Structure formats: C-alpha cells, structure tokens
C-alpha cells in the first residue's frame, strides 16, 4: 500500500509528510518529522505523554491517525516557547520544580496550556481533573498543580 501525503500546519508553519495509513500522528511527529518532544508512554491513550492540540483541541496523538491530520493545525511542545522566550507555564514549571525526570512534562505543558486557554481561572480541583489523563510518577503532582495555578494567576495579571 502506498503512503499517504499529508499536508498540515505544525506550530504555525506549513508541514507535509508521507505516512502509512495505519501510522499514528505520534509516530509521524516523532519518526517522520523528528519532533521528539512529544513522548510515547503507553500508546493507548492512558498516560497523556503524547498530548498535542489539533485545531485547538487537546488530543492524545497516539490515538489519532497521521492521515487524519490533513488540513489540521497541530500544536506540539516545540511550539510552546516563542523563540528563546519561554511560555509562562514553562517558566513556572522550572520555578516550582514541577518536573523531576521530565518525560511527562511536555504532555503536562500542552494539556495545561489548553486548560488555561479555555479556563483562565481554574480551581485546584479543576486543574487536577483536567490533568487526570496526564500521568506523572515522580512528583505526586503537588508541584505541577502549584505551577499551573501560579501560571494562571500570572497570566490573569498580565
């Protein structure tokens, strides 16, 4: 079976790639485009490490075919900072020591960004439930939740 030609936009720039029909968006991002900031932790939508946005909607890129990305706007961790300037969420994760091993961090950041765009003033409980699909095994989530709430507060002040 021949490959599918997919034209898409990734982090605001046009991108195209060839993929197999059964290839996931995660595989295309990592293995075709070498955007390895998006991680695979489970391949079954249970861990959130592969979180990206598709047309502004948070999804698990391991549960989406690459072919479905035709014409879509994809957002990945690589697009979060503006050049050398970190996004406020990235800055707060560093400040709060909200990462230890860091493998889940890209997924948490992409998911948190999607949350704050939808809800700029979430409660602790709302943050915890929104991020329930992002597993972290190092931190016990404590510092992650604090970092997201602090980022939200700073964004509201700005």
């Amino acid at each position: 079976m021949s490959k599918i030609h997919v034209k898409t936009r990734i982090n605001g720039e046009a991108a195209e790639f060839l993929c197999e029909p059964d290839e996931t968006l995660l595989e295309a991002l990592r293995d075709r485009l070498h955007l390895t900031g998006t991680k695979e932790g489970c391949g079954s939508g249970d861990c959130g490490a592969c979180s990206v946005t598709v047309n502004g909607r948070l999804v698990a890129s391991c549960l989406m075919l690459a072919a479905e990305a035709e014409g879509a706007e994809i957002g990945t961790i690589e697009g979060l900072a503006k050049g050398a300037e970190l996004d406020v969420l990235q800055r707060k994760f560093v400040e709060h020591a909200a990462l230890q091993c860091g493998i889940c961090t890209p997924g948490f950041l992409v998911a948190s960004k999607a949350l704050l765009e939808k809800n700029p003033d979430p409660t602790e409980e709302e943050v915890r439930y929104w991020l329930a699909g992002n597993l972290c095994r190092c931190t016990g989530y404590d510092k992650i939740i604090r970092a997201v709430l602090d980022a939200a507060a700073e964004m509201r002040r700005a």
Partner: protein
Amino acid sequence: MALDEYEKRDFKVVGKRMPRPDAIDKVTGRALYGADMHVPGMLVGKILRSPHAHARIKAIDTSAAEALEGVRAVVTGADFPDIAPGEARNVRDNTMARDKALYDGHAVAAVAATSAAIARKALKLIRVEYEILPHVTEISDAMKPDAPVVQEGFVQENVPEGFSENVISYHQYGHGDLDAGFAQADKVITRRFRTAATHQGYIEPHAALASFGADGTADLWVCTQGHYFVRQLCAEILQMDQAQLRVTASEIGGGFGGKTTCFIEPVALMLSKKAGAPVKLVMTRQEVFRASGPTVSSEIEVRMGMTKDGRITAAEAELHYQGGAFPNITVQFGAMAAFACYDLQAVQTRGYNVLTNRPKQAAYRAPGAPMAIYAVESVVDELCQEFDLDPLEVRLKNAARKGTRASYGPTYPDIGLVATLEAAQAHPHYSAPLGPNQARGVACGFWFNFGGDTSVSLSVDFDGSITVTEGNPDIGGSRVSIAMMAAEELGVPYESVRAVVTDTGSLGHNEVTDGSRVTFAVGLATIKAARAAKREMCRRAAKIWGIDEDAVVWEDGCAKPAGPNAGKFEPLSIKEIAAKSSRTGGPISGHHEVNAEGAGVSFGVHIADVEVDPETGHTKVVRYTVFQDAGKAVHPAYVEGQMQGGAAQGIGWALNEEYIYDEQGRLVNPGFLDYRIPVASDLPYIDAVILEIPNPGHPYGVRGVGETGIVPPLATLSNAVSRAIGRRMYELPMSPPRILKAIKGG
C-alpha cells in the same frame, strides 16, 4: 573515617532553590530520552515474547522471518555465548530465554528490520514450538514441596528443609530472648499480611539504540539508571572487553530502581552485531509491565508483644517474598528493615526468597522494606488501638535512637527518628479535626541508603567557568545539586558551573543511580574534586607570586596570601588563574574517585487522613504530610519532590496497584488502564517537612532522600483505612472490593 567528614558552615549556595540547568530542555522538548535518538541507517528491533507462564522451548523456526524482505537479523537464545553463573548470566537468560520460557512475556526471539511494520510482521512469522509446563505464580504454592520447579540449581546452603527447590535463600536476623520478651507482654498478637507485586511505573518505556562496529567495538545509547553497570553486564553477556563498549545514558524518564539492570540492551547489541547496522529497540508499555522488573509480592506474619503502657517487649516476623523466576536478595533487606525503627530487647526476622513464574524483579525504591514495615507498622497500630494509646507516643516510647542495637545487628550512631516523630507530633496536621467517615493513620519508615563507587572530574575552564563531569544519570535533579555543591566549595557563582553526565568512555566507573546515593556520593566526590582543584589553584597562585604554596589560601573564589607574613598580593580570582593556566603549568582540574561510605540511614514518618465511602469502599486521601530526615537539603524543592513522589507511589501501592494473574499465569493488566497508578485528581497536596540533621559522613551533612519516602505510606494508609471502617485490613492493595468486604464483615 567517614564519620568525620562533616564540618558545620554557613552555606551561600547550598540550601537555595536554584534553577535546574536541564529543566529548560525538558520544558521545551529538547531533552533527548531513550527513544528520541535517530541515527542514519537505523533499523527497528522488536521482541517476540512467550504467551505461556512456563513452557519448554522445543524448537524455534525463524526461517520465514529471515526470508522476509527488510528483515536484517533474527536473534534467539542460541546466539548468546556461554558464560559463568552469576548475575550476568541471569540477566542474559532473562533478556532472551534459552531452554524454557519462565513467565508470560519472557523474550524468546527478536528481529531487526527496516521498519516497525516489517519487524512486527516478521515476529508473526517466527514459529515457536512450546511444551507447556505446570506453572506457579503465588508464593505459598511455589513453596510447597511438590510445586513445579521454576529453575533448578539456585538453592543456597542454609535453606531449611521441607520446601520445594523454588525456596532458594533463607535469611535470619535478630537478637535477644523472644520467649522471655513475649512473657512480659500484656498482649501478644500474631497477624498475617499479603502485599501484591507492584511496578515502578516510570512513564518512559525502556529504550536502547545499539551500534556494533565491524571492528568489534560498540556504542549503546540507553535510558538507564546506571550506564556503567549496563556496560559491565552487556560486555560479559556478549563476551567483549568493557573498554570496547561505550555506553551513553540518555535523559531518563523515571526509574525508581526499575532501570538499574538490563532488560533489552544485550538483545539490541546482538541484533546490531548480526545486522551490521544500528538497531533501536523500544519496549511497548505492555512489554514494560510483562517483562521488566516489578517488585516482589509478599506474605508476612508478624508476632508482637506489648505492655499496656505501650512498650514493645518482643517481636518477630517471617517474610516470604517472590521476585519472579530468578534469584534476588530483596527479602534480605525486608528482614533487616522490618523492625529497624524500634529499640527491641528481643527481635527476630526470618526471610525466605521464592522463585515463581513471574518476571525477574528489579529494585523499587527501598527494595524489600515497604512491605515488611507495612506489616510491622500495622501490628503496632493494632496494639495501640487495643490499649487505646496514641500511635505517635507509642512509637516515641519504642523508637530506635543513638545506642539502640538495630534489629539487623549494629548499634545506631546518631539517627533522626525521634526528631522526626516529634516533628510529626507537633505538626498541626496531627491534631486537626476529622470529618465523618474520616480517620487518621500514621506510620514510620526506614531505609539504609548507600554510597558506592563514584568518579568525578572537575575542570576549571580557561574562562574560569567550571565543568563537573559525573557519571550518574540524573533522575530527578541531581545535576543542579552537584553544580550547587561545586559552586559552594569553590566560592563561585552557581551560574558559572555546569554539571554534565558523561558516557562510560569519558570517566571512571560510577555505580548505578540507586540506593539514594547520588547527591550524597557524587556530591561528596564533587566537593573533594573541587578541593583538589582549589589546592592546584593555590599552587599556581603561589608560583605567580613566588611564595610558598602553604602561604596561599582559597577564599570566596580567589587565591589569597594566607596572612601578612605571606606577602602583600592582590587576590587572584579563579578567572585570572584559569586564564594563565597554560603558562603556569597546564590545564587545571580536580578529580576524585572513591567507594563512598558513610551514607547514613534514614527515617521518615507519614500522617494521612482518609475518607472511606462506607457504601462503596472507595478511599479518598484528604490530607497527607511527610516528615523525613534529609541531612542537609542541598536543593529543598527537589528534596520535597522525592518525598512527595515516594509518598504518591506508596499511596498507589496501598490502594490500587497490583499485578493480577489469571489461571494460566498470564498477567491480565499490563497497561496503565488497569494497573492503576494515582492520577492528579486522586491526591491532595502532599506536605513535605524536611528535617535537617547533618549526616556526619558527608562534608555538608547530606543524606540520601530518594527511597525512604515510599516506605511509610503502605501502613499509614492501611492504619487510616482500618480506623475509618473500624476493621483491620491485612492485604494490599486495599482495593474498594476488599474494603467493602471488610466493612460488611467478610
């Protein structure tokens, strides 16, 4: 002597919350983990695994797979050379079965192909002829004299008679007269406990990229807690010189002990050797659960006597642990740690290690201690309830302290348990009011902590900046702590120091990142390396000034004349000395190599409030506080992180995590859907209270903090749940069906 290392000082850098140098890479996606490396000409490796818990491999036909276009190599157990008995041989046989498949998921063959799709197709073309054998996955079944024997030839010399050949080692510790002790008690109780096998649950699956050269040298990129140990094991398994194999550790996506050994690396190397091309091998999540190294499951019996005023008069425990199809020493640590928190006149523990048809266990944070201490702390709590005594008072009354003879043998030097208990007692959490269906649990925990082989090289670069080269994968922020200690010792700004984790070809041996050793041991070696560099810089300054080197001292990042008699010279800064170093004798470095001792044992106390739904058995953790002696906390935020992370893992262990096997001995929950680790909405904030009781074995008083935090939560939660429902729980996990059954009187 290691106990003399500590000197009190006022810290300038240590103790602050500095920005972590690798954090930027990790929040931007730039950091490269095991599966993130791509090299030209790279093949994809995949492993075929046994669907049977125990089966003789009668034949493997790989011809159809080899004939498939795009397949470059197929490997089976027959490809690996014979080696002497020992851990490397166990690892070899675990990473690729030879005569028998020993558990569901045991590797039986592997392929390397030009794409993942072809590799997957090739696996389906491999024909394995199995003779299914009777299997055994549960401890008590495996110990019976007529049990199916998992592997022969591992029984140690001192195992008592009457068991199957699966009982391979026996360990007994203790002292004193048990009978006399129990006779003094007002109440003696005997209780049996079970804990399920759990998994470390790191989010990054194992990954390795191996590249074997035609000249017999090889490179390996791998996510591991210890790339030197990976090199040692792989070199022995492939029968090559260690120097011919260069191993580079990627950034590591969690380990907690589970990445302290090899599960796929020798296979990746063998595939690459046969294919003549680089091979990347990445486990799926299902493979991680089935074929990496979960922790042991346990069956434990504890007998304890207490007077009505709360003094423990005697205690004993028998521990049965299974850690899969290969030998391990985890039960030994359980037997040593079980009563380590207590000052006991009469104590004995007996540990039995049992083989089963399950994956080869690996270390998991304080290996062996959590389940043993869970059982002991549950019994202490039950006796506290029996006599209506405050559980922290009783623990203080019996707490081990300086001069106590530890249940595992030695007499304790200064230790922090009493201070930790007192901190817990004084904390507002302990006296906060509770709501309906809520209860509070407390428990203590203990871990040994280790040091071990460590090499550090510290170079003073020509511009006066500092590169610290170390060899321990940074699993949770160790580079920032190492850089802080270097800056502290040299008196230079933290920002001018960079700590780098290097490959096995660039620095002497380093033991695995385990045993809570890195901040302690690598920190110690870094400080000593910095001191060596300072001495050299003083020598250079002495030469420049033309005075005796003893007349130069190092202060605030500068060489200075020692006093008025030394001569009147302007201080030479590190920048000035570095800039002139070519002309004063050559580049300046300090280095230190040591088998670090004096890590110092560690204690923790946890308090949990839970709310149990009496109609469903659902447990909600409503408040949680951790108290732990960290020695000097170099970077408090990452110390808190270790304590919080350990607590969260322990909460998962207590409530929901377990390996579940079916009748055929197959693991039925090899994924994050049904292996239920805590999610963000399951937990409250976890308050971490750091006690800083300096460790005399470290120049700055640092103590390991990585492991102890997972020990107390099991009993803390069990004690809280038991008090909330008014019935004692004896098995982990305390899943809702078990709790509801207990509530209903089952």
